[in-house]
């Protein structure tokens, strides 16, 4: 007994989708929301959908948000599905975050770092009180201040502390990085694959895991060495041209988490680092990613692997919300046959127990 006839739902499904379209549109007395409005005015939702959908295209992300009625995981799912329809032309040269056109840059460990602390368009220091003036769609927005921008370079924190050997240095490698979109995840997973998984991982899941490391589950005494957000150029080297060209820009958020480390047999006491890099303005996600990246380096650094955030398999198998939603939500699909057999089992066991 494998299948039962499952037919007859077509009309119900069509009608359900028609109702969904009507519900999505809402009260037609209210003007329809344009994709452009979402792109412009719900930018943080767009950023999150691009990051978790792993596809940088602001207009497509805004469209996905509209189509999904603002359900951001559903929207990320739509982007992931869409990307499978496109050919891949190239991979980029690794982006250079050191020369990012900075819109925000803060460090919690150096007050007077070169280039200074630049707050950018931040929610920090707001009082988290609802702003009822936004109920008025026509409320004027006052023009923001400008100042003369100096051309100070803004070195990354590792570039400042690294010279003394107090901070772990980056290890350059010419190895071609692994790609989760091409090869299935295998273990042990190297850091390149882990970072790719984290960059597209669910913000909520990584936030919870990062938080767990702060509360003692694999604690690593983090400091936010630096957070920077802004625009970087994307460069590719098309074979037919034989030289590198810019194809446009990405807005990225980068987090350098600096962690205490007492040293091991092979490594002297120094500060180690966790790294976060995400599409868009995603400070919370970048910070969580950096915490979890550092936690997953436990065995590499000779630390005991005891906590969930340090367990690479646990983190990587559960961080992708598209996979997670697929498996969790499949439970609502027909399991009539499975359940009938379970029902027979339970009936038989009860009968046997009663005899």
């Amino acid at each position, binding site marked *: 007994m494998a299948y039962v006839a499952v037919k007859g739902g077509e009309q119900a499904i069509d009608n359900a989708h028609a109702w969904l379209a009507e519900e999505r549109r809402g009260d037609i007395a209210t003007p329809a929301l344009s994709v452009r409005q979402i792109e412009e005015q719900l930018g943080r939702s767009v950023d999150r959908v691009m990051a978790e959908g792993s596809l940088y295209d602001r207009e497509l992300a805004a469209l996905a948000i509209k189509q999904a009625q603002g359900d951001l995981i559903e929207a990320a799912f739509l982007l992931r599905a869409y990307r499978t329809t*496109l050919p891949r032309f190239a991979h980029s040269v690794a982006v250079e975050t050191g020369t990012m056109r900075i819109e925000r840059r803060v460090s919690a460990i150096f007050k007077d770092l070169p280039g200074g*602390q*630049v707050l950018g368009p931040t929610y920090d220091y707001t009082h988290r009180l609802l702003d009822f003036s936004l109920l008025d769609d026509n409320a004027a927005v006052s023009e923001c201040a400008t100042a003369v921008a100096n051309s100070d370079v803004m070195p990354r924190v590792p570039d400042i502390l690294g010279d003394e050997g107090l901070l772990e240095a980056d290890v350059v490698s010419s190895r071609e990085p692994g790609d989760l979109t091409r090869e299935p995840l295998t273990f042990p997973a190297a850091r390149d694959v882990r970072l790719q998984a984290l960059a597209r991982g669910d913000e909520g899941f990584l936030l919870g895991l990062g938080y767990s490391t702060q509360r003692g589950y694999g604690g690593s005494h983090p400091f936010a060495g630096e957070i920077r957000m802004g625009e970087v150029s994307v460069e590719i080297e*098309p074979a*037919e041209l034989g*030289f590198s060209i810019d194809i446009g820009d990405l807005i990225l958020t980068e987090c*350098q988490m600096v962690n205490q480390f007492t040293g091991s047999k092979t490594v002297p006491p120094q500060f180690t680092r966790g790294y976060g890099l995400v599409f868009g303005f995603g400070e919370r996600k970048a910070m969580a990613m950096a915490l979890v990246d550092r936690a997953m380096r436990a065995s590499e650094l000779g630390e005991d692997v005891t906590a969930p955030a340090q367990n690479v398999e646990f983190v990587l198998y559960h961080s992708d919300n598209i996979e997670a939603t697929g498996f969790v939500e499949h439970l609502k699909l027909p399991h009539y046959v499975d359940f009938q057999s379970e029902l027979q089992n339970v009936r038989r066991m009860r009968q046997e127990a009663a005899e």
Partner: protein
Amino acid sequence: MNDSVPRDQPTIGHPWPARRRWMSILARSTAERIDALLAGCRPVPAHTILRGPEVGLVMTRGRAGGGGAAFNLGEMTVTRCTVRTETGLAGHAYVAGRDTRRAELAALVDALMQDPDRAAEIEAAVIAPLAQDQARYTAERAAKAAATRVQFFAMQTMRT
């Protein structure tokens, strides 16, 4: 003028820095703006499309720690196009996003810029204004960021 082009990677040793520059500027311009600026030039030669315009993906990369081993960050949409003018010049474009018209115009202007008879005119009438637009945008964002730079005050101690 060269300073107006956002440039993250060193261009020392680049075989064709001038072309790289105009392609970078075109990649960041809208179809409407390129079209409008071209309208102010002498007529452009007829061109045939050799490839595309087609939409695809570029896998963007970062580096672990910012400077370490490369990793795949995520993909972005990109449109490419190759044209050939009746004067025999091939122009290429790879531009972020899915605007096919923009890719075609960028490829056409790339071809025109390679024509010694047209380069100066196109530079002045198309590339330079586009570069100015982009420099203005970058400067505006930088000026807003600069206004949010924290000015710390040295607190005088209260001890007497």
